[in-house]
């Protein structure tokens, strides 16, 4: 017997990690230089959450995956062109800023509201997924707040594996210190899981999945609720790039033995 799940993945967009980022001051606070021009990707840890969600849904027929994404509509649209080819999901878009300097509690409130508005949402089947940290704010704060707002007390972070049992209970593996995992068992939904890398490779693009998804992506973007952050209590005293660029000493003409001696000396210092 399998379990019919409702898996809601929270995931936004971030600048492609290969881009060089530079902070600037905007009327709304700190931001990135050319923020709207930077190529974006789905937040990496959230994408792992999405792949794990799709895999779980596939193993449990009748289950469904939603992707709740808060970001500027135009950028979401671009990123969805690729993401939609990966795995089946229904997009729920919220149109608003997704940068690292936005306030986690406000983002969490917008996400929780979007989740609660899903028609037919059944908490006894609900698994809320997300990345354990974003690649923008990088705080690991938002998902826990979403969980609190939804009244979910079974929360897990740094998750690398979930094993669902036929009775709906599951075992979870979370990252802890020293390269170890903590294993817990949970009675079942509702639960919230902030994913680390998980175990699945990035799915290959599948144009058929893309076509199916795009049927809902367009309308979802069209009816995306606008989200305008309120003023926050934060003052950014400064935002700066690390100053230090090292003067790399490039050593080309030493033998392996000479290098090894130098390294051993350095290690022992």
């Amino acid at each position, binding site marked *: 017997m399998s379990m019919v799940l409702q898996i809601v993945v929270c995931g936004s967009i971030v600048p492609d990690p290969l881009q060089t980022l530079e902070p600037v001051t905007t009327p709304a606070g700190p931001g990135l230089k050319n923020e709207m021009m930077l190529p974006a990707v789905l937040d990496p840890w959230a994408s792992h959450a999405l792949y794990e969600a799709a895999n779980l849904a596939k193993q449990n027929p009748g289950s469904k995956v939603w992707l709740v994404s808060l970001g500027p509509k135009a950028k979401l649209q671009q990123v969805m062109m690729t993401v939609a080819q990966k795995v089946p999901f229904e997009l729920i878009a919220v149109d608003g800023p997704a940068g690292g300097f936005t306030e986690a509690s406000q983002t969490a409130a917008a996400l929780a509201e979007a989740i609660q508005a899903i028609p037919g949402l059944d908490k006894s089947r609900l698994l809320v997924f997300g990345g354990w940290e974003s690649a923008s704010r990088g705080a690991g704060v938002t998902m826990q707040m979403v969980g609190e707002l939804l009244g979910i007390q079974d*929360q897990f972070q740094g998750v690398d594996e979930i094993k669902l049992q036929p009775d709906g209970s599951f075992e979870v593996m979370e990252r802890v210190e020293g390269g170890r995992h903590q294993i817990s*068992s949970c009675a079942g939904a509702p639960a919230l899981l902030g994913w680390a890398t998980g175990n699945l490779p990035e799915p290959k693009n599948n144009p058929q999945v893309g076509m199916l998804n795009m049927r809902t992506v367009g309308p979802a973007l069209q009816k995306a609720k606008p989200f305008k952050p309120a003023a926050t209590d934060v003052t950014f005293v400064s935002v700066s790039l690390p100053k230090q660029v090292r003067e790399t000493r490039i050593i080309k003409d030493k033998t392996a033995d000479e290098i090894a001696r130098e390294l051993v000396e350095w290690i022992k210092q």
Partner: protein
Amino acid sequence: MDQILFLAHTQENGLLPASALEALTAALALKSASGASELVVGLVGASVQAAADQVAGCGAARFLGVAGAEFSVARYATDAMAAEAICKASAASIVVAPGSSRWHRVLPGVAQRLGGVADTHLTGLNPSGAGGALTVARWYYRQRMEAVIQRQRRPWFLLIDPGSQLAYVGAVGTATVELLPVQPGAAQLRTAFKGYRELSSGVQTIRPEAKLLFVAGAGWTKKQADGQPHVKEAETLILSFLQTSRASLGSSKSLVDLGGEGQAVLSFLTHLNQIGQTGSTPRHPKGLSTCCHGEEPHAVGWRFINERRAINLDANCGWARGKADVLYVADAFAVMNRVNELLAAK
């Protein structure tokens, strides 16, 4: 005036982990700078007396505790309950806590519950920063830029990044702990702790306390000058180096991903070893990169590695561009082989 709470959990032996003693240093600095503020110590664990005694001399006005078998290990529901009770009992406006995995996964949720805010991965704290008020420093965009911020809202939870402060040192004493009655119900006990899983290979390669981070890149598995890959040899070289040097093992994403794609890969590596954008950002005084290109998504994970050296066949690799102090343009197989011989001889 802020009411400061230092909030910690015990580790398996009933004492405070190093990360907690570091956070206590930050809490004490805050207290002494703001004069009239009071410091309360809050502790959670199976039993908290030994931990309270460990920091009995820190000058806290009160010691609050939540203790019992249900609080011995990390579980969101019970930890949130315990932290919430202590925060309320202490009337804290500022909560200083270690950014341990256990607290990191629960305190932002508690902040939400209490109508407060949480900032994590704090690397710096200035009690009398801009305008004489508290400022904290943290990194954004995966260690690409650093911001210094202030906040009005309270309670404000400050999670201090492990390794960023000196640990508190003080004489052990006898503390009087006020234990708070916190009774988890069925709703908080739906999750049960099963145990820890060590790495499947049984080889411990991640050592947060190590002086040296040794990074292995995908080059170790690539075809070498003779047109062949030498993965077994790479494994032996790396393992033997880790054994003698006691270094912590990091890896590039490409190398760990190869495992997932079914290619020959170093058997003792997992995603937990991955350094960078979608990996970790460990703290070690020194780092040695081998057979790794040093691309930006990898190098951002080196933000807190002070001295950096790299061995790469390519003089134009990423490390050459201001990312390492020294780049040895050489064959890492030959160099590490010799390094191992030298270390073994000592």
